[in-house]
C-alpha cells in the first residue's frame, strides 16, 4: 500500500490542517483529538524552491533540493524536490519516500518530481 502524508480535518468545523493542530484554526472551541486524517494530494504546482549546499548533519549528499508546493486542493507543503531545472509554477507530482535517516529511525516525507 502506498504511504501517505496526512492532513487533519476538524470534526467541528471541517477545516483541513497540515501540519496537525490540537485546536482548529476555524473554531477554537475544540475538544481533544476531534480531527480525522485525510491523505494529502500528491500533485500540485511548485511555488518556490532552492538547492541547499550547506546541509545539516545527517545528510551525506552534496546538495539537496527543497521546494514549497501548492497541492491540487489548495493546501501547501514543503518537500524535497528531484527536478533538474525547477521553475516557479511548474506542475509536480509527489511520492512518499525516506527523506531523512538517523541512527535508529527513517523519516518519510514527500519527494516531488516534474509531473
Amino acid at each position, binding site marked *: 500500500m502506498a504511504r501517505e502524508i496526512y492532513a487533519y480535518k476538524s470534526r467541528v468545523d471541517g477545516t483541513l490542517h497540515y*501540519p496537525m493542530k490540537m485546536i482548529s484554526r476555524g473554531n477554537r472551541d475544540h475538544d481533544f483529538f476531534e480531527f480525522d486524517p485525510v491523505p494529502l494530494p500528491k500533485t500540485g504546482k511548485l511555488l518556490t524552491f532552492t*538547492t*541547499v549546499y550547506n546541509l545539516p*548533519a545527517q545528510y551525506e549528499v552534496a546538495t539537496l533540493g*527543497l521546494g*514549497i508546493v501548492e497541492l491540487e486542493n489548495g493546501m501547501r507543503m514543503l518537500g524535497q524536490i528531484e527536478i533538474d531545472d525547477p521553475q*516557479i509554477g511548474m506542475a509536480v507530482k509527489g511520492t512518499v519516500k525516506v527523506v*531523512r535517516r538517523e541512527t535508529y529511525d527513517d523519516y518519510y516525507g514527500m519527494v516531488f518530481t516534474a509531473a
Partner: protein
Amino acid sequence: MRDVYVAGIGITTFTRLEYPLVEIASYASMMALKDAGITEVDQVYVANMGAARLNHQTALASAVTDSLSLLPAGAAAIENGPASGAAAIKAGFQAVASGMDDVVLVAGVERMREVNNLEATDFVATLTHPLAEYIYGVTLPALAAMFARLYMDKYGVTERHLAMVGVKNQNAALNNEWAHLQQAITLEGILDSPEAMTNNPYVADPLRFFDACPVSDGGAAIILVSKEKAQELGRPMIRLSGIGQATDTHAVFEREEPTDLLAVRKAAHDAYQMSGLSPEEIDVAELHDAFTILEIAQSEEVGFFPKGEGHIALEKGETALGGKIPINVGGGLKGRGHPVGATGVAQAWEIVTQLRGDGGKRQVEGARTGLTLNFGGFGNNVVCLTFVRED
C-alpha cells in the same frame, strides 16, 4: 504602568570566543553594571537559545547571577529562539513597569562556535516544524532562499540588491570595534568579477555566502530601571518607549501570502502604538538581517517603505548612514555577527549607543529615536522595540 529607562549597556566582541558561556554573559553584564554605576539588581534575565545543546550548560541565569555576585537577586533564563534577546528585554520591561522591580539586568549570550558548522546548522534548524519542515533537511538559509526567490519573482529584487545589503552592512561593521567581520567587501569581489563565484558561492540559491550572517559567539547586556532610579543614576535618559510582539505560523508554507511577514508588521504596529511614534519619526533602526533579503523585507513591514519598494530605497542609499532611515549602521547581524541569544540585546545596545551620541564614525547625527526588530524562527516570533532619548 511605570516608564522604563536604559541606565547601562555592555557588550563583548562578537567572534569566536574561547571563554565559558557564563563568563561571556558575565563580562557583558559587568560592563553594563559599571556603565550604569550600580552594584545591585533586583532581577536578572539571561537570553539564550542553545546552552543546553551546544555548551552542556543549563540553569544559565542562576550561574550568571552567582558569577556576578548579585545574589540573592531573582534570576531566570529566557529561550525564545533567535528572538530570545528582545523577549528577555520585554520581560525586564514588564518587571520594572509593573513596579515589581526597580533594577533589572538583561543579558543575552550564545557560544555557537563550540560545535562544528554541521552541528550549528542543525541546531538552528531545530526551530523549524519537526515533522513538516525539519525532517526534510530544511535549514534557515533554505527558508530564506525560498522566501528570496518569491520576493525576486514578485517585486523585482535581484541578486545585486541582496549583495548591496551585504556590502553595506559588512562594511558598516568596520566602524564597530565589537563586530565580528572586520574585512571590507565590494560588489566587484562578491558579484561582478570572474572570481565572484569562488569568493561567494551559493549556500542555498539564490542566496550566497555573503548573504548570510556569520556564526558568532558573544554577549550583550542592558540595565533597565525605573524613572526615579534613572534620574538618581544620572545617565542619559533613554526610555524604552514601545514594545510589540507577535507570532505567525510555525511552518512557513502555511502563510496565506508567503512574501508577507505578518508578525513583523503586527509587532512594529504595536510598538509604534505604545510609543506614540510613527515610522517616519524613527531616526535609526536595527533590523534582523540574518539574511540580506530580510533587511529589505523587514524595512517594508515596519513601515519605512511601501511593500515591494525596500530594494528601491536601498538603491537610492536611503538605508545607509546619512540616508533617510539608516539601518544597521553597526553592521547588523551580517557584519556584527549573530550569537542568536545575544542578538536582540545587542540591537538594543546599538540603539542606546546611537541615542547617547556615542556611535563614533557610525553615529547617526542627532538621533533621538530608534527601533529594533528581533526576528525569531523564520518570522514566527517577532519582537519590536522603540527607544526615545528624553533629556
